[in-house]
């Protein structure tokens, strides 16, 4: 499922690193589910923290309906430079993930 922020995040570097790890298919699926979930919830938290309560409900409704057009219309209207904020949030988390993978490989 394509998320509304998919065009802003760069997961290729994570995938390249995962590919270098000796993981079973089940481990790959489990670990990647955690990674995608972490990214998703971190980005949602970053967005929700910038919205008023009434707008949060509207946003969550658009999210439930998976209507990217309405999501972006709302976010661009309510939050300055929202794309930059999401990108920065995702980049920071991906950097942390790289650190964690490096540590895991060193063990």
């Amino acid at each position, binding site marked *: 499922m394509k998320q509304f922020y998919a065009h802003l995040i760069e997961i*290729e570097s994570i*995938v390249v690193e995962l*590919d270098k790890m000796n993981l079973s298919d089940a481990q790959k699926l489990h670990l990647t589910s955690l990674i995608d979930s972490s990214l998703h919830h971190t980005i949602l938290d970053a967005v929700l923290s910038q919205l008023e309560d009434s707008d949060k409900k509207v946003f969550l409704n658009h999210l439930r309906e998976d209507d*990217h057009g309405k999501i972006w219309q709302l976010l661009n209207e309510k939050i300055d430079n929202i794309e930059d904020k999401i990108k920065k949030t995702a980049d920071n988390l991906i950097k942390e993930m790289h650190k964690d993978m490096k540590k895991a490989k060193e063990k």
Partner: protein
Amino acid sequence: MTVPNPIALPIPQTIHAKDDILVGFDENAVLAKKLQEDLPEEVRPLNSAEEANLLKTLSSNFGFEVTTVIEGIKLNRNFGIIGGEQHLYRYPRDNLYAHAENTVDWAKYGSAGIAPGLGAWGYFSPSKQEFTDIDKMREKYYLAIQTFLAPGFAENVAKYRDFFKYRKMLVINPKTGQAVVAVVGDAGPAEWTGKHLGGSPEVMDILGLAGGPRKGPVLYFFIDDPDDKIPLGPVKVRSES
């Protein structure tokens, strides 16, 4: 995150049950039962009566027109063994990692690898800059079809090549009813393989054939969709039929 369902393009057909008792029931399983009754045990080309019966069943179940013939062109068969294919290069300097929308995509479909050569129609886009969501969906849900075995191919190569390029098809696993709308994105497999068509890693996953030997019997028909309204991706039965 685990089921390919990109926005704005392939929104799967939803189940619309007439009766509350059917809400949440997997209607594709009901279709599978009917297909099992109607299909021969042996995987072989269907006769015209069998084809007509199946076309009627499938068109009414899915709510769009499926057919064996468009513009006078038909395939050598519509019931055969599908095998798992690799990803295809979508534009120059594409790579396997870039195919994943998320990391789960990579975990599920990355191991299929990427074919060293291009598909029968070359790249899906001339460059990364010109690569669109439509191109992405076409590679994601592509079929390799034995276009070269279609009756009349040898006498009309150019016409058939153009006809088959990204031709939309419905593929169904008759054992489970799992179904996908996909496009013809490559020619193959060779006759000696014993397989009759190929499916992208995502297509095989939707059909429930991604595990084990990565092959199995399927039905495959053209979709008559001149206005390009039927989205690519998984498709479910409508119960209003």
